[in-house]
């Protein structure tokens, strides 16, 4: 195994860090929803540098790299609090496409994704199904031109301005992934803001006509594509959580070194030193797991380790980001300082990709399989 970044991976990290430093100010840009970020010059620059499509197949304009490079990016996005459609479009939808069986439809969208010319998002969660992205009660009814769909999807990420949805449903009794454009007749998109500033939507299908050629994958192939997408999603969310924790802890340590009460630096209080040390040790565990899981995924796109990473990231993320607020005192509660934004983001990620119990269960099931 290789836990150190290669020179090339380090270069990617440095490039993104520099770009974000120059073009992304979480304080200034906090009014933007994640979906809007795709319209910023920053997004085009990421595309031009080949970073958006970094893990998409080379033959369709991607960078041909893999999960390790994805975690490098997501971790940096977490640290610098960039909320963007990277997770929804490039990771979740991008992996689902990449792992779908070859077709003209697939190839055409992959190319558009890689160039930053289009955004896609995955619509999988349904009412009453908790965090189970595999569960779908939407059953396509056969008709002459294909199928008719009715039902609802929830918590669809970055639906505003998206070019197409990859929707899970059941066709002829088996799982299928299908592609639908937002302007499709019978489809309604109701977008709303999430508490972390990302953009979510509820998708309603009312007798939507699904032509045969919009089907991306069915049966075992659909299952494999969705599995890979969710594993990559879990890994990316864990990496972003890790980055958020690193950013939060680093800023907290700086503050403890600076702030004085009772005539001494807060950093001198052993009660705080020990807590910071515990958080650091927690992060070393998470860092190791995220890095190891990224390598596992390189060999097997739906490897169970990704869910282990997210299962650990959820409680560690919550704890580190809560402690960051607490150790700042009153100023930790403020929007202006923005320490609380890390907590909002890690809490949102654990609601989108599933909590610790959910991911732990996926890990156990797959580990045993």
């Amino acid at each position, binding site marked *: 195994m290789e836990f150190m970044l290669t020179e090339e991976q380090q270069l990617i990290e440095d490039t993104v860090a520099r770009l974000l430093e120059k073009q992304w100010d979480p304080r200034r840009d906090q009014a933007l929803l994640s979906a809007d970020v795709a319209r910023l010059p920053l997004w085009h620059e990421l595309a031009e540098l080949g970073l958006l499509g970094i893990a998409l197949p080379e033959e369709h304009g991607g960078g041909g790299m893999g999960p390790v490079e994805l975690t490098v990016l997501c971790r940096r996005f977490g640290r610098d609090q960039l909320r963007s459609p990277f997770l929804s479009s490039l990771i979740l939808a991008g992996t689902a496409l990449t792992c779908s069986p070859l077709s003209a439809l697939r190839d055409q969208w992959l190319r558009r994704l890689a160039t930053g010319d289009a955004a896609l998002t995955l619509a999988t969660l349904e009412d009453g199904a908790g965090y189970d992205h595999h569960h779908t009660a939407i059953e396509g009814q056969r008709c002459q031109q294909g199928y008719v769909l009715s039902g609802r999807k929830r*918590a669809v990420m970055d639906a505003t301005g998206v070019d197409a949805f990859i929707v899970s449903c059941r066709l002829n009794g088996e799982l299928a992934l299908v592609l639908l454009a937002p302007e499709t007749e019978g489809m309604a998109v*109701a977008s*709303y803001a999430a508490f972390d500033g990302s953009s979510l939507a509820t998708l309603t299908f009312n007798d939507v006509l699904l032509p045969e050629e919009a089907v991306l994958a069915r049966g075992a192939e659909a299952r494999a594509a969705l599995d890979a997408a969710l594993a990559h999603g879990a890994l990316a969310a864990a990496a972003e959580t890790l980055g958020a924790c690193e950013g939060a802890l680093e800023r907290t340590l700086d503050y403890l070194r600076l702030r004085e009460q009772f005539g001494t630096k807060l950093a001198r209080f052993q009660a705080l030193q020990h807590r910071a040390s515990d958080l650091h040790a927690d992060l070393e565990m998470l860092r190791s797991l995220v890095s190891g899981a990224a390598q596992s995924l390189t060999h097997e796109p739906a490897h169970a380790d990704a869910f282990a990473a997210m299962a650990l990231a959820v409680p560690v993320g919550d704890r580190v980001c809560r402690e960051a607020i607490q150790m700042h005192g009153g100023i930790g509660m403020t929007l202006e300082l923005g320490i609380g934004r890390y*907590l909002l983001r890690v809490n949102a990620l654990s609601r989108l990709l599933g909590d610790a119990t959910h991911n732990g269960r996926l890990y156990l099931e797959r580990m045993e399989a």
Partner: protein
Amino acid sequence: MTDLSRSEEIRFRQEIREFVASEVPESIRLKVAQGRDVSRDETIAWQRKLVAQGWGAVHWPKHWGGTDWSLQKRFVFEEEMALAGAPSIPPFNTRMLGPILLEYGTEEQKERFLPGALNMDQWWCQGYSEPSAGSDLAALRTRAVREGDYYRVNGGKIWTSYAHYADWMFCLVRTDPEAKKQKGISFLLLDMCDEGVSVEPIHHFYGAHILNQVLLEDVKVPVSQRIGEENTGWTTAKALLEHERLATSRHAEARRKLGRLLALAKANQDASGALHQRADLKARIAEVAVQVKALEFATRRGLEMLIRDGRIGVFASSLNLKGVAINQAVDEAIMDIAGVDALAADAAYDGLPRDLLNDGGDARYVAESRYYLRGPAIAAGSNEVQRNIIAKHVLDL
């Protein structure tokens, strides 16, 4: 002041529940149930209803509009009010300023300020903390210089809850810069409309506006608005009723929220069925419920100490520490049970039909409530300060 008999207590609780049921408007009841902030006007209107009922400040003497209730009856009153979902009134008017005026104010000052504080004709805020004086409050630097009948006040306060609502502020200022920390401080009442007072909003990280910064520039405060002697403000500020220290456990709030947790777990489901049937969540809810029960009995134990000894002393620090932690644990469990439902920002709840948020068990605003509760772990004696008190004064370390 004889204690309530069992049957009197039952009747009294019933009376309170009926009062809340008939007097709290539906819109406010919903806000309270959702753990949201009640507006300025709503708060004042509710306080005035309480005053009309004779319940505006039950721990004040009857002469000033209070009651002659026993400690136990007051406890029952506050507990039942919170359980019934009455909006909580910020503590500044009747719980903080009131007792201070009653103990240290002159007759004139009492006449002038108590009735308005009770009826909320004046909304009061608390100006203690400063940018460089937080946990170490005695390091405060806002300077008051005596000029004849006035003090000229310069400096500023921070983290002032509801200063943007306030008509008046009670504050601590430094009157003797030479004296040792606690010694040179005085307690002043300051009109927020005075020239030189300005209020800047500070937003919580999740958007709410409760906190403020108050800047004081050459504000002239009449000496008649000083409470107690000059340079004795520290003692004055500490005149918090022992009884109030029980309230920091927030046990009734925790119990009410536990009810919400159970309701959500019943209403929400995942692919395996209703959440309250899931073994892991049952264990989680049980853990929280056990803690809430312990908090309830701990608070009653505190009441017993208060009745027996007239004080709860350093036990208050354990109550505060665990009260905050257990309330946070209930909030976290609620947010976890709400799952995907908890994702929407507050504004989204206001703007979209509930139906489209797929919100089966009314999980609205649970995130806001959870993030709000980060505050009490920091304010008015942070967790760390409470731990220091326990280590030093209880454990003798």
